[in-house]
């Protein structure tokens, strides 16, 4: 799977640098949002809500 992802990345990079730039932004944004949501759900399930203001 990792090899397939790497092959895809190389193909996009060789086809168009602009597309590679956009792919980078998109992958980082989607991954960031997905992991943030998932981790938040896990933290809340563990009781770490964290909405405690101190200012």
């Amino acid at each position, binding site marked *: 799977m990792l090899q397939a992802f790497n092959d895809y990345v190389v193909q996009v990079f060789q086809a168009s*640098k602009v597309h590679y730039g956009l792919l980078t932004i998109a992958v980082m944004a989607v991954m960031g949002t997905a992991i943030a949501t998932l981790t938040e759900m896990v933290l809340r399930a563990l009781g770490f809500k964290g909405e405690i203001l101190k200012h």
Partner: protein
Amino acid sequence: MLHLPIADTYTSAWALLLLGFTVGVLGGFFGIGGAFMVTPALNIFGFPMAYAVGTDIAHIFGKSIVSTFKHALLRHVCWIYGILIGLTGMLGVSLGKQLIMYLERIGRVDTYVRVVYILLLVSIGGYMIWEYIRWSRNKDRREEGAHHEETSRLALFFQKVRLWPMIPSPLTGIRMSFWVLVGLGVFTGWVSGFLGVGGGFVRVPMMVYLLGFPTVVAVGTDLLAIVISGSWGAYTYATAGRVELMAACVMLLGAAVGAQLGALATAFVQGMRIRLLFAVTVLLAAVGVILKQYKLSLVAGVLMLGSATALTAIVMALFMAGYVARRRALAAARAAMVPETAGESGGR
């Protein structure tokens, strides 16, 4: 081992994951990208320098989304200020790059950049440590409130500037002139462009000392600004073929979890303590740059990596201690309420 197809080299996936987690915690806690720690570390792990910078910037963009998400939930993000400072910061970056090109033409770029970098890091770090010592010596202020933070004179001065339009910050109750915010954004962007760094270590103290933001709000708002500038940085480095997407993804996996924990930790640690740890981080970065000046890049990289790991351990320990203390306080409060309730029902 992970194959990096564009740079055509190999690196350890576990090392990337761990590095991502470490800088994720520090990034979420301090509101910094952590480029000054990650870039030398990636270089040690076998990345050519240009790929280290590009891959780091791409992962910083993803990580900042995670940290901003968490800080937004904690209500630490002043959206309008963050967007304004992030956008105007991009103009500042261009100005900083222009100066770099000029210095390159006259052949003085390396010396000037390093001298400015060291002076800036030492003065910011030194001032913050001095401020912390002053605060910790003042027993009355310490006891006044666990989270008390003093507004600087500079911030009070800038808050009095009444140049239209005034931009309110509902979160902090501060009203700042649009032009002060533009000036701050352009200046911090200029520093980023001139030094080739994300700029978090300049923006956070600036927001604290010039705008009068509480430390946690400065951290959250700065992260939003990093999302804006980081997206552009990641795009430009990727189009130049200097981003290893697979490596950036692996780092982001670790960083996303770390960033959530780091951001959450700010809710359990005193603002002044965050400032102290931030100052230590900045001073360590200064030591790293000084070592590089004397051609000790490997030592500097190892120092950065070691100190990042140590700081992460300290942040996690403070987080756990704060969490346990709060749980105990809540349990004690509940226990105190139970006899009262029992007494009331017995009376009836």
